[in-house]
């Protein structure tokens, strides 16, 4: 699971007011370098939720990061975004609903977001 995908996932488990962003608890995180695709990053930018991305990066680095409010996006920033959005993969771990602590397991890089009948 890439952080790009994490940015789009929300927990709609019953009882949650806002199940977003999901907390990432990664037990196996790998980095796979891919060729830089500025075009893709630019296309993705307007769809992103920045605070959620920053939270995700903090989750996988397990440390506090500083929010970057710079709107003038340089090539180096695009590269950094490309790295975090596309090259970091959570292979094993959990996504945790911030509202209810419901845990969604990630196995072989695939998050299981299926809700049981009594959770809908």
């Amino acid at each position, binding site marked *: 699971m890439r952080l790009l995908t994490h940015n789009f996932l*929300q927990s709609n488990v019953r009882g949650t007011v806002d199940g*977003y962003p999901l907390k990432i608890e990664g037990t196996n995180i790998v980095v796979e*370098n891919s*060729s830089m*695709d500025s075009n893709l990053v630019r296309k993705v930018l307007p769809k992103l*939720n920045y605070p959620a991305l920053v939270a995700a990066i903090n989750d996988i680095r397990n440390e506090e990061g500083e929010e970057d409010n710079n709107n003038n996006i340089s090539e180096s920033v695009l590269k950094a975004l490309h790295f975090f959005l596309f090259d970091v993969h959570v292979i094993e771990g959990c996504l945790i609903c911030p509202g209810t602590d419901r845990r969604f397991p990630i196995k072989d890089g695939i998050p*299981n977001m*299926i809700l049981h009948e009594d959770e809908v």
Partner: protein
Amino acid sequence: MAEWHPLRSYDGENGNGMNEDDEKFKSWNQLNQLAIDKGKIMTTAPAIMPTLDHSSMDDYQHVYEPKNENHRRRRQRQRHEDRSSYSGTGISVIATDLNPFALQFAQRTAEENGIVGIEDENDTNDDNDNEKNNTSRRRNNNYIQKIEFIECNLAQPLLNRLEQKVDIILFNPPYVPTEDTEIDGNDIEISWAGGINGRKIIDASLQQIATLLTKPDGICYMITVDDNLPHELSTILHNDYKLQMIPLMRRRASNEYLTVQKITWL
């Protein structure tokens, strides 16, 4: 000449005594005929079937076996109009399924066909050099490379955050007419069981399609069979969601006609 559409009245043919339903049905058949013709033209384009060398009979206990027909259709659809604007860089794809085996199978297929995976060809982690070379040879820059898999019901966990942000939806729903109870199974039948008229899952997807598609250019391609009463679907999409649905391509596949429906904003 404008394309036929069941919801557009056409000149000079309204006063012939047919009631509206007959008229709609007639024009829908005309659309279907156009879609068949398109399907014939497209047969000249060679189909690319992904390699499935990694698959075994065990896989098909849990995953609906890919058929040549399905894949040919999929590739053709991409050729038809997506190819120029949606291939190459700038694409990111999310694939969802209820069936974890189907997702794992799809992930393996994508890896085996060089669509996803590690790009560095000098990577020494791969034990089997021959296999690696095969994969590298197959890899093509026109292929999708950013593809992600999520186990979920339709697009449920994505609806809030991808509202009007999805450019293209490809949907091969479970469209086979069955008892409604069959769609709640736990096994292979959920890959095809569609409930009454095969519409149970399709109907549930319409709201999600309308939520996700970008305006005004988003496109959804969906497979239907005639048992799904596509002309009725088209009316529902038009009236409830301001979407229009037109048969894009249509071909006989053994005992049924499969149609690729193209859904766009009005």
